[in-house]
């Protein structure tokens, strides 16, 4: 309830603050604007109305928020307050940066003697507009910076400020890197582009490039260095956010660079195969791919290195390997797909050539260049990453065990299997369709050409399917062998009361989960326990036995160091906190799962209760990740399509 109230107050305070700032900007702009047709009056009226509405609403909510935070420590340290303060910081400083960029763009275009309309930012506003916006936002920043400093100085335990500050810093890194990237790409585009028209419109790229670099590069260096210096503070070096940001930057860098490289290679091969071009014309026509490839190549090189460096700070060797594995499999998948495409295209072209189907040398040149470009890009990426992943999965150590069972590897193999099976269905279907049509009396033209094309597609897909299926089977054999050995050496003792009802439920569940596990059932009486039980690596004890343990059990437990698994069976008069009510059968299944995890050396993960909010959160996160992936994919495709 308090969280909802807090959310309401901070959200309304944020919105009304923005209304005030932009109202003030409109008001101040009327001092400089001389607009025809009542334009200045409109600007004045809009500014006044925004301020008149925004100020009372903001004051009403901000005063309440500040009063609550002074009275209640929990309010002052709440995550929402931290998010609000840093969100305000971002929302006022980013417009400052944008307006500085607008001013610099304007000056740059004046120096170049070109129209400001070519600027990406600031084309439709004057220098005074920008200065007014900077001033208004800086005033707001100055006030909220004092509030933030006050909260930091209070140094209250449980404050969320460090976490939120970290997020804010990485947002600045990404934003400023984006500015610098655009600037560098624009300059490279200008350098590669050969002018020749009557109008030197290419100066637009130079003007924008220089302005964005002048603003973006120093800001990126400053924000990145701030992040790097903060790594000495606890929790910064190994934060998940840092890892995710480095991952995304390294992956985005490699994906875009390789896509651009593929485009450039394709055109280079066409050039080598005789397409008429001078070097200058070649660079000019493919300046987009070249400029984007070089820029993102630098990002890949720098942040890829940072990412690999970062992994080495992870103390857990297995987790280190897991982090590298995800990166490696993503690249292996991209390389695999690209290499397959290249091979399929090349074989298809050779079939067309064999049947005399290609119409002219330029068409042949185009087809070969596409195929070779895909192979030149895809094969090295695949061969650099896949054999390393295979070698890791072949290890007989713990690392190999984790590699074989990792969800990333399984996901990779099953995804490839799925795609190849779908490919088999499509190619086989098309082949059958062709043959049956011919047999039934309505043959398609160029029967043997089409037959050979469809057959080669089918054979290629079957080859890929066969190879990855055998990799999966090999994994399964190795996993089974390793697990069987582990289970056989993991003795388990199940203690039960005289009725033995729980053991009767548990034994079949253990048999299903871990058939090689040696299990001994002991029905507690007054007799001392046999010495042979001392070798047990895990003991399963119903909670009711622990609540009133027989003397023999108490003595045995005090001397034995086996892993204890306590089962909260329902017991009249007893309430087990922290455990959801479950039937003995469900508890037996869960116990068997936990024992198997212990036997296999996996971390014990009892099933967590899932709430609707958690599931909703997972769904939203997946949709967002899909959207980001689709945007990246469409950007890459648009570049290839050009």
């Amino acid at each position: 309830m308090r969280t909802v109230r807090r959310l309401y107050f901070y959200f309304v305070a944020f919105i009304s603050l923005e209304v005030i700032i932009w109202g003030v900007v409109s008001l101040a702009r009327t001092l400089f604007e001389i607009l025809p047709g009542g334009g200045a009056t409109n600007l004045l009226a809009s500014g006044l109305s925004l301020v008149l509405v925004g100020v009372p609403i903001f004051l009403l909510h901000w005063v309440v928020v500040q009063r609550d935070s002074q009275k209640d420590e929990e309010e002052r340290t709440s995550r929402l307050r931290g998010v609000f303060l840093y969100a305000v910081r971002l929302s006022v400083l980013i417009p400052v940066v944008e307006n500085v960029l607008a001013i610099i763009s304007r000056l740059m275009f004046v120096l170049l003697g070109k129209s400001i309309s070519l600027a990406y930012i600031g084309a439709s506003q004057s220098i005074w507009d920008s200065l007014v916006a900077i001033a208004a936002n800086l005033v707001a920043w100055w006030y909220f910076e004092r509030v933030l400093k006050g909260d930091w100085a209070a140094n209250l335990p449980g404050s969320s400020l460090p976490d939120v500050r970290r997020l804010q810093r990485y947002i600045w890194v990404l934003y400023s890197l984006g500015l610098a990237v655009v600037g560098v790409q624009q300059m490279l585009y200008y350098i590669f582009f050969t002018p020749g028209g009557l109008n030197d419109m290419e100066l637009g790229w130079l003007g924008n490039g220089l302005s964005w670099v002048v603003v973006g590069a120093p800001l990126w260096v400053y924000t990145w260095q701030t992040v790097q210096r903060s790594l000495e503070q606890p929790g910064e070096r190994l934060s998940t956010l840092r890892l995710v940001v480095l991952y995304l930057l390294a992956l985005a860098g490699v994906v875009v660079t390789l896509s651009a490289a593929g485009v450039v290679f394709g055109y280079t091969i066409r050039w080598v195969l005789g397409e008429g071009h001078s070097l200058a014309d070649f660079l000019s026509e493919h300046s987009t791919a070249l400029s984007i490839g070089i820029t993102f190549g630098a990002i890949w090189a720098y942040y890829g290195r940072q990412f690999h460096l970062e992994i080495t700070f992870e103390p857990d060797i297995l987790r280190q390997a897991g982090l590298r594995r995800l990166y490696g499999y993503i690249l292996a998948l991209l390389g695999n797909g690209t290499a397959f495409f290249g091979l399929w295209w090349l074989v298809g072209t050779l079939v067309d050539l064999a049947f005399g189907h290609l119409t002219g040398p330029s068409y042949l040149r185009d087809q070969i260049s596409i195929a070779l470009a895909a192979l030149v890009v895809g094969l090295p990426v695949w061969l650099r990453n896949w054999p390393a992943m295979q070698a890791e999965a072949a290890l007989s150590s713990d690392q190999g065990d984790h590699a074989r069972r990792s969800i990333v590897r399984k996901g990779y193999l099953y995804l490839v299997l799925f795609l190849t099976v779908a490919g088999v269905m499509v190619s086989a279907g098309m082949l059958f369709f062709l043959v049956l049509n011919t047999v039934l009396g309505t043959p398609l033209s160029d029967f043997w050409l089409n037959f050979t094309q469809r057959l080669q597609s089918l054979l290629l897909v079957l080859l890929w399917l066969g190879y990855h299926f055998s990799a999966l089977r090999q994994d399964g054999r190795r996993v089974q062998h390793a697990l069987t050995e582990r289970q056989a050496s993991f003795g388990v003792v199940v203690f039960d009361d005289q009725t033995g009802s729980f053991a009767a439920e548990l034994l079949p569940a253990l048999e299903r989960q871990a058939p090689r596990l040696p299990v001994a059932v002991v029905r507690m009486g007054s007799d001392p326990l046999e010495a042979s039980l001392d070798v047990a690596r895990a003991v399963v004890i119903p909670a009711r036995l622990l609540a009133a343990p027989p003397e023999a059990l108490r003595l045995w437990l005090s001397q034995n160091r086996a892993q204890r698994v306590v089962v909260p069976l329902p017991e009249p008069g007893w309430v087990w906190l922290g455990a959801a009510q479950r039937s003995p059968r469900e508890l037996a299944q869960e116990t068997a799962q936990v024992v198997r995890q212990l036997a296999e050396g996996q971390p014990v993960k009892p099933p967590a209760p899932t709430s609707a909010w958690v599931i909703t959160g997972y769904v939203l996160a997946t949709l967002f990740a899909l959207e980001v992936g689709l945007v990246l994919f469409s950007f890459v495709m648009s570049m290839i399509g050009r």
Partner: protein
Amino acid sequence: MKKDRFLMGILVGIGVLAVVAVGLFFLRQKQVDYVPDDTPQGVVQDYALALYKLDYQRAYSYLSEGEGKPDLARFQQVFITSQKTELDRVGLKIGEVNVTGDNAGVSLTLIHASGDPFQGSYRDIQSATLKKQATGWKLTNIPYPFWDYSWYQPAIKQ
């Protein structure tokens, strides 16, 4: 930052890039002048150059006589208000000429600058058409944004 040599290298690279870009700016600067307007391509070049240099009077003089020809004020209005921004974003390369009697076609490559980063530019091959009149070659059509489609339209009779 001194410890991060890679970062230093990137910054030096950006600096070198900026110097090269500015150097190319000075090297590529050339004065584009009017050419003799007794040929179709000369007329097209001088017309486009006059628009770029905001010499609307001169540009107007290259329009052909005919029904629906805009007056100077209407002609100027198009380029002052809406199409000025578009003109700034388009480069023009003049290609081959094809003359048939009193009519001529001039191949043009329009290079359009995109309004967004990463989009670069795209080329569009079109043509301008001219007619030989008493005072020389005159334009009857040239692609947007050098032309407005409302010109030379027959008036709607009521």
